[in-house]
């Protein structure tokens, strides 16, 4: 049952533990189609873990993930113990959710074009020409058409991250996850990456972005969430969030440290 204002992604009671440490503690989150959610918070607060859980790079202990109205990713065996769904299903889900990493993780042995073509070619089994066509489109979108035949080692950090975005976009994902996409970049290179993300937002891409760039959160976000110790402490539209930050001592001290 699909409705217009049904959330694209719905998280309920997500809990992820690493041994004794509870990284994410019962988080609920609904993301509507086209919405841009920005998650901020101190390091170790579970932002990245939450994002990785959405892409099944982390296996959660409790909670449900609902994508396009279907509960996905986990099944119960006959003893009632839940475990990750079959690799095929997980791969299919991941191919609909793009992810961009802090350290780019481009494939160094492939050219820029090869990196972007890899998903359509290997995962979607598209033809060489078709994959190449898609990849060139995506490279044009991130403004790196002229770099298509070089290896990633020759690119600047900002260029690498834009290629990584193109690589994720080539799969035509319905949701994009950005895990601190600018944290490994020199300050003067941050702008070009955010320009790319901004352009995506204008096209109506649904995005969850973990970042420390408050300016970007203020400008682009539909909703800003402050996360600490595995839980959402506060959330709201950027205007409300930044206007009412004084109410939360923790948010205030966090923001004063990074701004």
């Amino acid at each position, binding site marked *: 049952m699909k409705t217009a204002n049904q959330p694209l992604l719905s998280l309920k009671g997500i809990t992820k533990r690493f041994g004794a440490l509870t990284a994410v503690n019962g988080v609920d989150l609904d993301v509507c189609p086209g919405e841009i959610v920005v998650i901020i918070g101190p390091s170790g607060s579970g932002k990245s873990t939450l994002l990785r859980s959405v892409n099944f790079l982390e296996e959660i202990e409790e909670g449900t993930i609902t994508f396009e109205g279907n509960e996905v990713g986990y099944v119960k065996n006959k003893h009632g113990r839940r475990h990750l769904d079959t690799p095929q299903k997980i791969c299919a889900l991941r191919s609909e959710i793009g992810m961009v990493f802090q350290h780019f993780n481009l494939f160094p042995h492939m050219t820029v074009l090869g990196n972007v073509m890899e998903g359509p070619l290997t995962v*979607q089994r598209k033809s060489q020409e078709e994959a190449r066509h898609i990849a060139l489109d995506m490279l044009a979108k991130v403004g790196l058409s002229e770099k298509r035949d070089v290896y990633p080692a020759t690119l600047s950090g900002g260029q690498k991250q834009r290629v990584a975005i193109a690589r994720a976009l080539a799969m035509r994902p319905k949701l994009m996850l950005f895990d601190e996409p600018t944290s490994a970049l020199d300050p003067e290179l941050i702008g070009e990456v955010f320009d790319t993300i901004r352009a995506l937002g204008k096209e109506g891409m649904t995005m969850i972005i973990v970042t420390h760039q408050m300016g970007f959160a203020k400008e682009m976000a539909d909703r800003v969430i402050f996360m600490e110790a595995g839980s959402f402490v506060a959330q709201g539209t950027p205007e409300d969030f930044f206007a009412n930050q004084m109410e939360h001592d923790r948010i205030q001290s966090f923001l004063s440290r990074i701004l």
Partner: protein
Amino acid sequence: MKVLCGRVIRTILLFSCLLFLLAPLSRAEDTDQIFQDANDAMARGDLPSAITVLKKVPFSKSDDSGAFVRSRMQIARLQFALKDFSAATASTKEVLAVYPDNSEALNFLASVQKEQKPRYVVFWEDCLRFLPNLLKGAVMTITLVFCTMLISPLGGLLIALGRISRFKPFSTLCWFIIWLFRGTPLLLQLFFIYYGLPSLGITFKPFTAAILGLGLNYSAYLGEIIRGGIQSIEHGQMEAAKAIGMSYGQAMRRVIIPQTYKRLMPPIGNEFIALIKDTALVSTIAMVELMRSADQMFNAYFNVTALILAAIIYLVFTTFFTFIFEKIEHRAGIYENR
């Protein structure tokens, strides 16, 4: 007077007859004495006088007792020992003048002539003599190396993937193979496969046994090297591959393993250089390869040239492979060159 003349003539005739009859006897006694004297002289270490004594044995067309040949060959050997090669040649030729196909004289003449030749000529002639056999052995060595080079990287990859597999029986099996084949001498493994397994009813031809032993041993070593290579690839690569929807197999094949090539070339090249030399071990299981050929030549002629030649052939192989692996390493890492 007439009577006296007749008695004298009779006596002379009688003595003549007696001398004639006794002549062979006395000559035999003479030659024995000559050899005895010569031996005494040699025992004293006086080789020149031994030669002088032996020369008293007269030249004889019909040398029934063999004393002439014996004396001349002995003279030749003594002259050889005194490094008078031309005199030794002359003495030998004296024998050959009477008996043109006396094998002892012919062989001796050959060794005298060899001694007179410059050393490099002798070495070169030995090389030409040994090379055909050694090259035949070398072809077998190269065949063994190539077969093992084809098998062991595949076996090694399988073992490496097994070791990092989360499927317990597979990873335990691979751990066991590595434990077994790295932990025992290759020589023992070859013996076991070729001599030991027949008692369990499994019989291999020498070549099959050699390939099996080398293949398993080198797969175990390469397995650990390849596992190290795979695990040295940054974890983010696997996550990025998964994030675009790749399966574990696709990520390994397309992303992880291609990145290990450059890193793996130096240690694998090392292993293959060791392999070239380790093939010498299969000579112990009835395989005729380079080492075995060299050993055969060495034992047949007691000539060290065979071993030197084998060493040179091994060096040619290892140098060639070192060069090839440097080239491959350079090409495998082309994307890292800015």
